[in-house]
Structure formats: structure tokens, C-alpha cells
């Protein structure tokens, strides 16, 4: 091995930086060349020192670590980034990798694993804490279960006015009554109705009511169907 891999640590907790320093000191092929307590300072150091790796805390006083990652990926694509985080929620993890991180390590992990992660990332390998990867895999495997949590994509395309009209129609108001209620012309209501049915891919008033009932727009008994 010729040269050491250089590392910049960006974390606002001096105590944690200290710990990390002594931990990284265990591996002679790694060297910390700079330390920063803020995102601004960290970005400046990376620009100046061009390290192989930046270890960035996910929450920094000025900006969050994900934003720093995103910026570094465009300005210094050769610098690998490891996110250190207190969070173990999957959203943070996916967000970090989407932003371009190479590794994601939870701060409470075993020290060996932290070091392992930093080493792997410095070699350019993706690394996810094994305590986490278990969670993540479980989540991914649980995809069929996702059906119990649905965001209705079609309904999302309705405009505010269409939502309003849909509910009134589902509640049984006639076109005329809806028009009177909203102070618009029956013709406009008809246009909206047409657009709603097209967007939701439904073809009759009965279907519209059923759809509204499924979403809970109108008050019907769920368990009795």
C-alpha cells in the first residue's frame, strides 16, 4: 500500500470527533487530515484538502449532512462520503444514498463496525450498517405488506376544486345543487365531473360513490360491507 487514505471529519460534537479520531487511528492506512464542526467549514476543508473520504454527521448546526453530501457529489465527485447518524429510520437511509453517500453508519453501532464502514467506503464500496441492513431488508421484503398502506395515486391528480365537487357529488347532490352551493354554473360543474371521472378512471355515478366511500370522503360503515 502506497499512500494513506485521507479523511475529513465533519461533526459538531468535539467529543465524538475525538472518539472517531482514536478509532480511525487503529488503522494505519487511514489518516484524518482535517476536522470541522459545521457544514460550511467542512465544505471549505474538502475543497482545500481534497480527501479520499468525508465522514459527515447527518445533522449539523448550519445545514444537514444530506445537503452537504449532495453538494459534494457535484463539486467533488471523487470524494466518497459516509453519513454518520443517530437516526435508524429507513427514510433517512434512502435519502442519504439518494444524495450520493457511499456509506451510512449509525453512531451507536459497535466500534468495529464503524471502522469497518469507513474502511469499506474509503475503498469505494457501499456500506450499510449490518444492524440497519437487517431492518432495511425486512422492510423491502415486506413490500406485499405495503398494500396495507396505500397512497391513492389517481386521487392525487385531482385539483382542489375537483376534490370539493367530488365530495358533493358523492354526497348525492345534483349538478344544479353543486352549482348553487359553489356559485358556479352547472356547465362548469359538468366539466369538472367529466374531468374527475376521467382522472379516476370511473364511469358511473355509482362507481364515484363507491370510490368516495373507499377513501372515507362520505360516511359509510366500513366493517359492515
Amino acid at each position, binding site marked *: 500500500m502506497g499512500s494513506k487514505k485521507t479523511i475529513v471529519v465533519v461533526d459538531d460534537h468535539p467529543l465524538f470527533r475525538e472518539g472517531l479520531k482514536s478509532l480511525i487511528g487503529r488503522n494505519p492506512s487511514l489518516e484524518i487530515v482535517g476536522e470541522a464542526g459545521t457544514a460550511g467549514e467542512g465544505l471549505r476543508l474538502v475543497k482545500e484538502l481534497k480527501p479520499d473520504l468525508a465522514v459527515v454527521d447527518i445533522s449539523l448546526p448550519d445545514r444537514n449532512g444530506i445537503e452537504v453530501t449532495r453538494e459534494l457529489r457535484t463539486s467533488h465527485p471523487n470524494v466518497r462520503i459516509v453519513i454518520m447518524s443517530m437516526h435508524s429510520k429507513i427514510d433517512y437511509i434512502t435519502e442519504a444514498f439518494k444524495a450520493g453517500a457511499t456509506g451510512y453508519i449509525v453512531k*451507536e453501532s459497535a466500534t468495529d463496525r464503524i471502522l469497518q464502514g469507513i474502511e469499506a467506503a474509503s475503498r469505494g464500496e457501499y456500506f450499510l450498517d449490518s444492524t440497519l441492513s437487517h431492518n432495511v431488508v425486512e422492510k423491502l421484503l415486506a413490500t406485499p405488506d405495503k398494500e396495507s398502506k396505500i397512497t391513492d395515486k389517481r386521487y392525487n391528480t385531482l385539483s382542489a376544486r375537483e376534490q*370539493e365537487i367530488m365530495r358533493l357529488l358523492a354526497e348525492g347532490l345534483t349538478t344544479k345543487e353543486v352549482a348553487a352551493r359553489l356559485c358556479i354554473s352547472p356547465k362548469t360543474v359538468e366539466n369538472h365531473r367529466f374531468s374527475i371521472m376521467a382522472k379516476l378512471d370511473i364511469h358511473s355515478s355509482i362507481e364515484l360513490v363507491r370510490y368516495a366511500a373507499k377513501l372515507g370522503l362520505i360516511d359509510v360503515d366500513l366493517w359492515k360491507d
Partner: protein
Amino acid sequence: MEPLNLIIVEDEEAHYQLMRLATLKELPSARIHHFVDASSCLDQIDEIRPDVIIADYRMPGMSGIEFLQVLSDGNRDIPVIIITGQGDERIAVQAIKLGAWDYLVKSSDSLVLLPRLLQKLISGRRLRRSLLEAERRFQDLAESTLTWLWEMDRDGNYTYCNPVVAKVLGYPAEEVVGRNFCDFLHEEERENISRILPRIMQTEKPSSCMVIRLVHRNGHEVIVETNGAPVLDKAGKLLGHRGMNRDITKRRRAEEHIRLLTQQSLRAQESERLKLSRELHDTIGQELSALKIGIDTLLDDQPEEFVHRMGQRVVKLSKMLQETIAEVRNLAYDLRPSTLEQFGLVQTIYQYCDEFSRRNGIQVHVLCAGMDDLDLGFDTRITLFRLVQEGLNNVRKHAEAKNVSLRLVASSPMIIFNLEDDGKGFDVQNRMMSTLRERCMGICSMEERVALLGGTMKLDSRPTQGTRIRIEVPLRENVHGIKENHRGC
């Protein structure tokens, strides 16, 4: 009813006796005073204060007609019945013109007719008295009540106000009568009301509990609750309205104050939770993490023999620390989910429900629609999340449910939130019973949160049939830092 007090002026004793007997037969309690001429009657009339006088037309001295004249000159409002002879109808007409109440022609029928006339007089007197009483009762009530009573014509012009109006509006009743009720409306109310005014004024249905803002003479706002009913004529044509206004300004202010205080206390609670959560997560958590690395690397440069001796203990400490860190992190998250700001409400709810399902073995089916691209105001976001939290916690604690359905749907201008479980349910009527008090607390707290957002909450439950909660709150988005309401025209 007092007995009838009667004077008979009749010079023929026999005729007087006949009249007396005929009267007493029908009106046994009547008190009868007899005079043989008009002037002796006039001497005592003010003492006797009769209800009615029966006077013969032909009398010694003063005639019946002259007698009538004297009575009306003296401003005595006593009904008089004049007795005339056969063929004296001309005199009868004259008597009526002079103010006689009625006349009776001496005949075989007159003794039958007399008691009837008296009966008619009594019932008329009764009617007048009850009318007077009713008017008096109304006057007394109208003047002693704290409610402003009013009448207005079809155009909304006041035609009557009781004196209370002066207390409410600062204007004496005389100054209000004749003016239109729109004149007293609060500026911000005027446009709304004048738009619906024709409809209100033409309605023939009573209106109840309308809340209207008016302006006091000295400029401050007065809030009244008004109840009114239409006034119709015999043909059913609308004449106007009458009703009452109750000054609820103080009550409203107090309610507003309570609402504000509750809101402030909830906000304070949230900001305190945020502070605590941040402190736990960012300071204590981070320091514990640093401490853990410190412990883990403690033995790095130590002699072999020392490592051998201490190694196990260090590993144990490190493991304890790791558990503590996880606990701190979970606590921080429960206090305030950091994902709410970073990944939004829907994602946070999904995550929360997911964990709830796993921890408690209750399947939570979540359905969100139209919620993804909303930039909800902070109050709405945190309230909806807390409603999910509290709702699910109620289910966990009380429902014994296997499935929960949670649906959150944007339906401009409202957000509709349905939470239903298939648990054991409860009797909503008896929910104040002590065994259910804890449950009630959970529900009351939800109701309070919903009310603060200006929403409504409906609870439906029956034993063995699960519980359904339906909440609607106004959809308020942040638009360039300004809150905007979704609303129609």
C-alpha cells in the same frame, strides 16, 4: 272573579223588584244598589263604583238622557243600560249616541233579556281584564328581562324595542325604533348580512340562534344571539318579524380566551417536546455515542495483560451504553418525530403505523389520498399526527381490536380523517361512566385538538361493533409563508 256591582235607577218599586229578581236568578252573587232618581244615585256613585248602571229613561227629576250626559261629562267610564218604553226607539238611538252601552225596551221579554245583557257585559269585562293583564305581564317581563326584545317590519325597520336595547347598544329604545337593523351591524358583518337579508326578511320560518355582530354606540363590538319568528296577518301575509337578542359578547370573549389559552398551552407543550427531543437526540445521544467510542477504544494502547483483565467488563459497558443510546433515541422520536419536518406527514404516519402494527400486533391499514403535495401549516401537521397517535393509543389501550383502518384524505376545503377499529366498541351514551373515564380522556383530548383547528369530530361506537371516529379539519396550506384557506366562493 269579583261579584257584579250593579246600580238600578228605577222609580217604580214593582219594576225594580222584578229586575232585581231576574238578575239574581242568573247572577246570584250580584250586589244590587237601588235608587229612585238619578241625582241621589250621582251622590253615591263614586262610593259604590259600580260595574254597570241600569237606568230608566223616564224618571222623576233628571231624565235618563240627562243622566248619561252628566256621567260622560264627569269622565266616568261606566257602562249604562237605558230602559225605554215601547215606541221610544228614537230615544234609544239618542242614548247610544251619548255613550250608553246598550238599551232595553220594557216588554214581557225585557226581564229575560236583562240578565243576558249583563252576562255579555261580564264576559266583555273579563276579556278586557285578561287583555290588560296580558299586556301588563308583557310590560313587566319586557322591562325586567335582560334580553333585548324587538319587532321589525318586512324591510327590517324596528317597530318596537324594549328598554334593554339601551344596555346592549347604548341607544334608548326611541332612537332605535324607526331605524333599520342594518344600521347597527358591524362593518365586517354588513356585507354578508345584506347579501342574505332579503332571504331572511322574506322567510316565514322562525330563525334560531343566529349569531350577529353589532356595534355599540361607543364603537365597540357587541355579539348577540338572535332568535326570531315571522309575524303574519290573518290572511297569512308576512308583516315582519319579532324576536329577541341576547348579548353574548362576554361569553364569546371568554370562550375565545379559553381557546387561545388551550392553543397556547398545546403549542407550548409541542415546543417543549421539540426542545427536549432535540436535546436528547443531539446532545445527550451524541455524547453517549462519543462516550461509547471512548470506551470501545479505551484498551487500544494498553498492555496485553490489562486488556485480558478488563476486556469483558469494557464490552459489557459498551453494550449497556448501546442500549441506552437506543432508548434515548426512541424517546426523542416519541416526543417529536423528526421525520415530520423532513419527510412530511404522510411518510411519518406510515412509519408510525408500521411500528405500531409491529409492536402491538394490531394491523393498521393506512390509506392516504391527495395529501402528498400539500404544504400544510405546522399546527395542522402536528395536530393530525397527534390525532393519529392518540387515536391508535386509544385503540391499543381499550379496543381489543385486530384491525384498524386509518384514512386521511384531502377533500378541499377540508381534510377528512377516518379511524375505525374492529374492537369491542362501547356504549357512547354511557361513556362518562367511571370505567370508561380513561377512554373518555383520550377522546376528549382529541376533540379539543380538533376544535382548536376549527374542525369537527364524530364518534360512533356500539358494544361489539367497533369504534369509528370521523374528523374533519379545514385544509390550510402555507403559501409563501402565508396561511391560505381552501374555500369556495
